[in-house]
């Protein structure tokens, strides 16, 4: 029922919104996908990865390189997902099989992101190019082809904003459904057990390292797909996607929405993005101060997430009069 309602609402949205709002909502849904990828690994696997922005960025760059060289956006989307998954597999192998602790894992994923930021920033020279795609340093990669419908025997049709909205919405719903199925499956149960007590799960005979690697690669692939969609949406990507504030943003989305619910990540991403865009594109420094203070405040006051805390408070408000009227 709920799903049918959501599908109907999403189908009706573009009809009632302006073109600008449709385009903006499309990119917010791309961000929702990124938030979903973090909640999958953090909320269910209990592994805090600061590197989702790295997979997002690698996905975006891979989409750009493949898209410019082949001209096929579907191929590029597959490449972006695969590239991010490959990076996640490599990183996950060394950290999980090295039995690096959760803290070290978080720090290592963050360092990888920061170093990618610096490396991509030094590629301004024209000789840094993969095929016809110039990496472009801090100015970024331009002229990335848009997402298009490519059927054999027909000319490619670039997706207009409204069809693109439906494609991204469909992908978001499909991946949300896949993630729900995954966490409800036996694999997902073991994953939750790892989150609760890694040592005990291992003593029960489950290969913890392999399962962590699998969920990390899946989460990396989703983040990479989201990065590919982002590059196709804006025809542009620059090293800013690897910056500290971008990495923090992903964590803030999930912390606002509450982790471990999947829906929460999507709500969090939408709430934070709408708020920041309504507050206006004030200077980057103000945003940075605001994001930082939000992060500190949530950790200190609402460690379980902002939306769950609000819902809890609301539920208590509703329940209180009823409790008072009951006989003592």
């Amino acid at each position, binding site marked *: 029922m709920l799903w049918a309602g959501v599908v109907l609402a999403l189908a009706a949205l573009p009809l009632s919104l302006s073109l600008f709002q449709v385009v903006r909502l499309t990119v917010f849904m791309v961000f929702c996908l990124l938030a979903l990828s973090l909640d999958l690994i953090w909320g269910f696997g209990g592994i*805090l990865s600061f590197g989702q922005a790295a997979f997002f960025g690698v996905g975006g760059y891979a989409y750009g390189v493949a898209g410019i060289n082949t001209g096929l956006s579907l191929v590029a989307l597959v490449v972006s997902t695969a590239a991010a998954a490959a990076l996640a597999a490599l*990183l996950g192998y*060394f*950290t999980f*099989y*090295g*039995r*690096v602790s*959760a*803290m*070290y894992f*978080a*720090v*290592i994923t*963050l*360092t*990888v992101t*920061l*170093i990618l930021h*610096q*490396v991509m920033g*030094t590629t301004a020279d024209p000789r840094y190019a993969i095929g016809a795609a110039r990496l472009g340093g801090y100015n970024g990669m331009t002229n990335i082809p848009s997402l298009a419908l490519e059927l054999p025997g027909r000319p490619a049709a670039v997706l207009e904003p409204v069809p693109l909205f439906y494609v991204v919405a469909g992908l978001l719903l499909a991946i949300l459904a896949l993630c729900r199925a995954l966490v409800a499956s036996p694999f997902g149960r073991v994953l939750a057990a790892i989150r609760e007590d890694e040592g005990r799960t291992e003593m029960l005979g489950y290969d913890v390292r392999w399962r962590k690697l699998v969920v990390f690669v899946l989460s990396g692939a989703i983040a990479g797909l989201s990065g590919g969609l982002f590059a196709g949406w804006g025809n542009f990507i620059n090293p800013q996607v690897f910056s*500290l*504030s971008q990495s*923090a943003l992903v*964590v803030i989305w999930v*912390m606002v929405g509450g982790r471990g619910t999947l829906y929460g990540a999507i709500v969090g991403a939408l709430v934070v993005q709408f708020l920041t865009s309504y507050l206006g594109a004030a*200077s980057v*420094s*103000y*945003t*940075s*101060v*605001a*994001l*930082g*203070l*939000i*992060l*500190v*405040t949530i*950790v*200190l006051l609402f*460690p379980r997430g902002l939306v769950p805390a609000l819902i809890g408070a609301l539920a208590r408000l509703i329940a209180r009069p009823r409790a008072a009227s009951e006989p003592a």
Partner: protein
Amino acid sequence: MDLLAVTAFGIVYGIATLVLLALGLAVIFGMMGVINLAQGEFLMLGAYTVLLTTAHGGSVWAGIALAPLVVGFVGVAVERTVIRFLYGRTLDTMLATWGLSLALIGIVTLGFGPTTEGIATPLGHVAVGRYSVAHYQGFVIAVALGSLGLTWGLFNWTRFGLVARATMQNASMVAGLGVNPSRVYMGTFAFGSALAGLGGAVMAPLTGVVPTFGLAFIAKIFITVIVGGPVILLGTTTAGGVLGLVESLVSYASTPIYGQVAMLVFAIVLLRLLPQGISGFWRRGV
């Protein structure tokens, strides 16, 4: 021969900067187990202390002497308002200090602008054959050795150091013996912050001062402390030596950016082989 001497000096200098910058984190993260992602911004605040001192007519040396005090006080403020509520919640500490890091970068950018400010490097050069070496680089090496010795002496030879090490091992036992662990945590955090302030201040004339000063170093110093492992000072120094050597060699052969990449890859492979860090199998101690 000259080239060899200058290169060797450059490598020693590279290792010394890594150790100097990582020392504060080694105390805060290695001893206290607090992952302080705002450590890079503590370095940055140290650098800005030097900038402000010289801008108001003070000498660079006065700025370098002032920086540990200023950043030490910032450390006390941060510990009292944020960190002390989060002991034992490692990942939450990490998120909160990350927020702090973003906020500090934003505030300093609003106050001083996003541009890089230069500070004239004091002291001259000495000629080594056809090459020249800055005296200031020798000063950096001396400060690194000095603060390493100071930290080692503080934790091994003073009463504060003894109490601090005991508190990190068993806080409730120490509390039972009549010491307030909360104050020991505060003192240790302040000392680690002061070391970061000193490191940032010493590096300021060489790198220039910019609000994102810390970002250039944060990845490096965390990797160094993690690879260092449980024997904090000796481990960090050894890790600084190994990683600094890898970084310097690759940087000489190609560019500094590839030097950093090589260092990171080397560190991750090393952690696969030695998950406890370089000092994982050594006798425990500071």
